[in-house]
């Protein structure tokens, strides 16, 4: 994980002048704006990102400032405009490609998994692919099976990619800026339910390095690992449980590749209990993989089996109550925590 440090300048903690609260989508927009001003090789490619400013307004106004050569509306040819991002990155640019829904990333995997992820390796480091793939996932709006998936596990499994899934405006901005400056191809997954959430973001510039988890809530009784939209849900569960005197540590890995195993394992060694919460379907998800490392590295510390709270193994239904039944809810997290702690006795 020492490469991380090389790729990503250390955090420049903001000298918290006047804290202000902005939305996740605004934080992302600021990151793009700042990096585009800083570096003329940064440009954007995607559907409806220029004139319309993006489905979630993340790219609003950028066309005005940077013009139609740096903010490009593409046709519905995902594989090719993504691959064009890869090709541009290979030859000195820093493209940020947007795929509207992570579900559509199924159309571009050859360019991501066989090209972007492997070109540095196959050419023995003659080149790098400094591109960012911005995309958006998750359920929660009744958008049904082809617009609601959580597919991070697929990117997670392909060596050569980095993978970020920020949960807060602060993390979104700092990680996006690092992603753009990274020489790895970065898959950057936003969550449709997070765009309108608010959080403090300093006015001053800052970067967040990849591979550094964030302890969102310190605690002693049990470690809860959660990312993206499962983080706010887990924090709520932790607050509810705190009322009963259960003291939970909530860890957000923020980037799944590289993964900050150390922070997670250290936390589990301290609390001796682990619950992992993931929105993606249970089978073959990232949670299983994290569990497998903790199992290996903290075997003798675990007082109870690691609990995984995850999405059902099913496509997402349209109807809202069915949809809800497929995705971990606060109550599911609370129950898992109780199960994990019950075993101790």
């Amino acid at each position: 994980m020492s490469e991380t440090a090389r790729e990503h300048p250390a955090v420049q903690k903001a000298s918290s002048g006047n804290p202000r609260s902005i939305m996740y989508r605004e934080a992302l927009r600021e990151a793009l704006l700042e990096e585009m001003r800083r570096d003329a090789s940064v440009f954007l490619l995607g559907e409806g990102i220029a004139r319309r400013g993006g489905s979630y307004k993340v790219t609003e106004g950028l066309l005005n400032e940077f013009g139609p050569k740096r903010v490009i509306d593409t046709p519905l040819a995902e594989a090719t405009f993504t691959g064009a991002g890869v090709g541009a990155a290979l030859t000195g640019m820093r493209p940020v490609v947007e795929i509207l829904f992570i579900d559509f990333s199924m159309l571009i995997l050859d360019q991501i998994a066989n090209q972007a992820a492997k070109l540095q390796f196959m050419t023995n480091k003659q080149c790098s692919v400094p591109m960012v793939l911005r995309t958006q996932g998750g359920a929660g709006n009744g958008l049904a099976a082809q617009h609601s998936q959580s597919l991070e596990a697929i990117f997670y499994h392909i060596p050569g990619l980095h993978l970020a899934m920020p949960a807060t405006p602060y993390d979104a901005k700092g990680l996006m800026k690092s992603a753009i400056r990274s020489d790895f191809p970065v898959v950057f997954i936003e969550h449709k339910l997070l765009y309108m959430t608010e959080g403090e973001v300093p006015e001053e510039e800052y970067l967040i390095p990849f591979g550094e988890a964030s302890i969102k809530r310190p605690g002693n009784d049990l470690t809860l690992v959660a990312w993206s939209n499962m983080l706010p849900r887990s924090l709520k569960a932790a607050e509810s449980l705190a009322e009963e005197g259960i003291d939970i540590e909530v860890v957000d890995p923020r980037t799944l590749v590289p993964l900050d195993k150390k922070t997670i394992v250290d936390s589990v060694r301290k609390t001796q209990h682990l619950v992992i919460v993931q929105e993606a379907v249970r089978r073959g998800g990232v949670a299983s993989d994290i569990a497998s490392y903790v199992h290996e590295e903290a075997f003798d510390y675990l007082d109870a089996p690691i609990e995984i709270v995850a999405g059902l193994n099913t496509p997402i239904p349209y109807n809202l109550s069915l949809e809800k039944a497929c995705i971990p809810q606060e109550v599911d997290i609370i129950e898992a925590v109780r199960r994990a702690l019950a075993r101790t006795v």
Partner: protein
Amino acid sequence: MAGRKRKYPQKLLVELYRNLYMIRVFETRCIKLYRQGLIRGYFHPYLGEEAIAVGVCAALRPKDRIASTHRGHGHCIARGADIKLMAAEIMGRETGYCGGRGGSMHIADMSLGNLGANGIVGANMPLALGSALGSWVRGTNEVTVAFTSDGGVMNGTFCETLNLAGALGVPLIVVIENNQYAVSTTVEETTRETELYKRGIGLGVESHRIDGNNVLEVYDYAKDAHKKCVQGKGPVLLEAVTYRHGGHHVNDPGLYMPKDRLEDYKKKDPCLLGRKFLAEIGAVTAQKIDEIERKVEQQMEEAVEYAVNSPQPSVEEFLDDVRCYS
């Protein structure tokens, strides 16, 4: 096709108009329901494009099949769907076409050979090809129609599908609904050759550009294409030019659409034209047409009532249902 003499029986003209109007009413009414919070998710109205689905589907036989798009309500209705089940589906009810699992972007009626709407633009092309391919392998001659869009044409599946269909000669009709926008992006912005049917010519496939607002022109070309497919002379590509009467989906005001352009297209509103054909060629009186319209509106109200009073799906049954995927 100009100057061609085709006879249009009154029965056909009535059927065409009834379907045009049904789509118009269905979409208009459902948009209201959406605003009232009874429908959620994405909803892409077919308003302004009715003549394409209606003209094409009128040329098909019961055993033929269609593969639809994200903007699928019109195809569904034109193919004879039960609007009760459609309304129930987009309200997410147990009684809907897909038991509330699918919603607007996934309505299908396999019993009518409607392979379903699709949320992935371009993805229905290979599915339609496969349907036609199955007919070809079996030696039966069901014809399959793939509806696609100016946006869908930009996706690789369009050329791949049309090319393979051409190589094998399978009974496939590809219909481009060129409404000149992919959300807010114009065709001009995304290609140098805006006459999209020319891509078919480059692939050696018979291709035509037609007026997508004129239900009789659409019907004529679809009928010919269908005949060719049955004779083993498929595939055929039709580019039907049209224009949306509003934004991309119910929540898009479509401010980027020039007002005068929209006004022009509204002058050749497919429903107006259909009504005119019914009156002039079909010699049906205004009163009779009004009756047809009232009947459609009444059916729609029944559908809404049915849907509104339908139960929500049971979570327990759902959980049971999906166990097969574990």
